[in-house]
Structure formats: C-alpha cells, structure tokens
C-alpha cells in the first residue's frame, strides 16, 4: 500500500537555511546540503528546498546547492521559489532537482503550467498554493505571501489539476509559523476537490498536527520545517509516531 510521506522543508536564502515566522524575522541556521543529507539519512521521504528570496536576489547560489545536494541525497528533491519560466525549470532539473514547485508564475501565467507539464511531465510539476482565509473561503496569495490575487483557492486548485499539475503543495498563510496546526478545513476541502495528491503545509507545532493533516486533512504528504529544523523532533520520531497512530508510513 502507498505510504503517506513526511517532507522536511528547508527555507534557503543566499545558500543558507532559514525559517521565518509568518514569512518574516529570519534566523540563520545552517548549510542546506548538510541538513538535507541528515534528513534523508533519517528517513525523510522527500526533501524540499524553498528559495525564499529568489525573486529578487542572485539565483545562481540555489543551483549550486541543488547540484551538491542531489549528489548526496537519493530521495526526491523538490525546489521552489522564484521560478518564472520553462528555462528556470529546465536549469533546476538539470542541476538534479526531481520536481519544481511553482507559485507566483502559475497564478500570473497558467501557460507555464500547461507547457512545463507537457515538456517535463506532470510528475515534476508541483503547484504551491499560498492560501489565506477570507470568510468561508480562501484566497490565493503570490510573491511570498505579499500580494493577494483575489483568486478562490479551491477553484484555482481544480484549474491547476486540469492544467497538468502533478501535486499541490497547499500552505495556509494564517497558520504558517504559528505552530498551532494545519488549516484542516482548507486541506480537506482542496484534497476532496482534486484527484492529485495534496501536500499539507503551514502551522505544524507537534506530531499530532502531522497525524491530523493526513487523517482529517486527507493530505497524501505532510510538510514541516521548524519542528524538524530546530531539532524538536527527528524525522524518525515523527515516523514512529505516525506509525503508532495507524498511518501507513515508510519505516
């Protein structure tokens, strides 16, 4: 049977790992290559790099980080942040990324999703949706959470599936950095709306939140950053805990 995945995410800025609270207040905390290797040795099902300042700073550093990481980690590697074009995707894949996640570019130009999934295959196109609650709906934000597109997140999720996305990485902006748990309502609504896997993100503070993301949020995979990064829990502890709660997991 297919196992649910645990994906540690490393926010990378200028080639260094950081994790912010609500997208600001960054702390420097390590070398991404080394960190990724620790995660993959610890049993991470995938590794995710998010290049958080990629839109307006030197992008070449992330290519180097991806190149080095892919020579040491033999689990899937997803890279997101600041990817604008087919050419950007091509470059990252050539450096050894297995998937790329698109956010702003997918909102602004759906053609990039259609074209890239045709060219490289849906399996490597992840659409990252940063969603913020407004009443009983959610709106899609772009530019690292700075701009409100006004687009309904559920409709957008469905549209991205039709455009060829292989997976959706759904982040609740209301929860991100708060450690109070995923926005379960958002996750389960999107997961029920589409027939592609959903990765839940934003808000994990303890291991029960991971359980909830899968059991209640119906996510195929759970992504977390700070609980792993600051050593609160190891990947192994997380996996054993999920296993003890009856969630299918690779141990």
């Amino acid at each position, binding site marked *: 049977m297919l196992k649910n995945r645990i994906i540690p995410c490393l926010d990378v800025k200028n080639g260094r790992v950081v994790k912010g609270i609500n997208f600001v207040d960054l702390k420097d905390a390590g070398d991404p290559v080394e960190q990724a290797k620790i995660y993959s040795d610890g049993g991470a099902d995938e590794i995710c790099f998010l290049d958080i300042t990629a839109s307006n700073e030197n992008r070449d550093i992330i290519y180097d980080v991806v190149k080095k990481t892919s020579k040491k980690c033999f689990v899937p590697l997803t890279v997101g942040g600041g990817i604008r074009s087919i050419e950007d995707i091509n470059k990252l894949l050539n450096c050894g990324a297995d998937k790329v996640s698109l956010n702003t570019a997918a909102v602004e130009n759906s053609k990039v999703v259609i074209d890239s999934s045709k060219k490289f295959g849906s399996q490597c196109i992840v659409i990252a949706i940063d969603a913020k609650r407004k009443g009983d709906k959610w709106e899609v934000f772009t530019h690292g959470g700075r701009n409100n597109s006004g687009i309904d997140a559920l409709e957008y999720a469905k549209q991205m599936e039709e455009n060829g996305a292989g997976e959706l990485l759904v982040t609740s902006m209301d929860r991100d950095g708060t450690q109070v748990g995923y926005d379960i309502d958002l996750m389960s609504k999107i997961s029920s709306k589409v027939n592609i*896997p959903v990765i839940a993100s934003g808000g994990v503070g303890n291991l029960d939140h991971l359980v909830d993301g899968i059991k209640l949020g119906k996510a195929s995979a759970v992504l977390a950053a700070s609980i792993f990064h600051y050593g609160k829990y190891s990947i192994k502890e997380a996996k054993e805990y999920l296993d003890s709660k009856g969630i299918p997991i690779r141990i």
Partner: protein
Amino acid sequence: MNVTIVDYNSGNISSVINSFREVAKDKVNITVTTNLNKIKSSDKIILPGQGSFKSCVDALNKINGLSDALNEFAINNKKPILGICVGLQMFADIGYEETETKGLGWISGKVSKINDQNGKYKLPHIGWNQIDIIRNSKIFKDIENKSHMYFVHSYEFIPEDKNVISATTDYSSNIVCSVERENIFGTQFHPEKSDKFGLKIIDNFINL
C-alpha cells in the same frame, strides 16, 4: 566495464546519472550519450524515461538509428538493459497515454492508465510503496520482499506473459513494477530515488 545511460531527451535524467555514478565510483565507467557506436559497444545500457509514453517514444524516434541500435543491443546481442519508469513501459507493444503509440515491442503487452476506481485512488501514484517480489530477479539480490521503492506514474505496464513479472505493488490493483526476461530488466519505480535499497538494485544491475 562500460555502462551507458541513453540520453534521448526523455526528460530529467540527472538523478539517474548521479545515482549510477555514486554506485559505480571509479570501478565502472558511466557514460551519458546518444552516440550510436558508443551505445552498441557498451556492456550495459540504462533506458530512462519521464513524461508521457508518447513523448518518450517520439524523442527516441527523433534520433536517427537509435531504436535500431537498441534492438541490436538488447534483442540480437542480448546484452543487459535496464528500463526505468517510462523506459520500462516502452518495452511494450503499445501505449495509450495521450494517443495510441507503438512501443519497442520487446515484451508483448500494453501500457494503460491505472484504474483510479472513480477517484478512490489519486493519480499520479506518487510516493513510497512496497514491492511484492513474486519471482526471483537478479536485480533483487539482497533486496528484502516488501522493501519500499519510490513511484511516480499514472500508467501501468500490463505484459501478456505474466512470467516476465518479477514484482508488483499494490495501488488500486497489483501493478507490475518490475520485469525480467533474459537480459531485459525494467522497473516502474525509480531506483535512483529509492534511497539505499534503490542504490542496491542499481549495484546489482551493474554487477550482473
């Protein structure tokens, strides 16, 4: 020994290259090429493949003489070849992704979409799943039954002769995930992304 990874613009093959180089170290030459003479003179070949069945077959046919060279290598000379993901699927006679497309026809059968049972199973089948080894395969040396491998695909290979199946995985039904017929090997999962057990399979293939 020379092991060649066929680079026919079938999508992203960096991970395949990295994993084979990691396993081969300095003992084995890993070449990445479409040069037909190099392919013919190799000891072993890897046929990767990402994207759709049609896009891979089209990419392969775009390179003049490549499918003949592969035929000569695998069918006439019976040298070891490993197909990965769509690389394996192309062994079939026919694939139904996008449109009906002819495959290499090395192992009779077809490639069709996984039955998602009206949305019960999400597609693509992405992630780690256990393999059920149903027949001993040389590439499974020291691989325990029920080992986890990394999958990402929406289509499955259905061979006519069930005896070629060496492993299946459970997703909607028993999906064929590994085949072996004489010198021809294929995995639906990605050994290059399947951590240490995946690397062991690569090692087994290199050491055939």
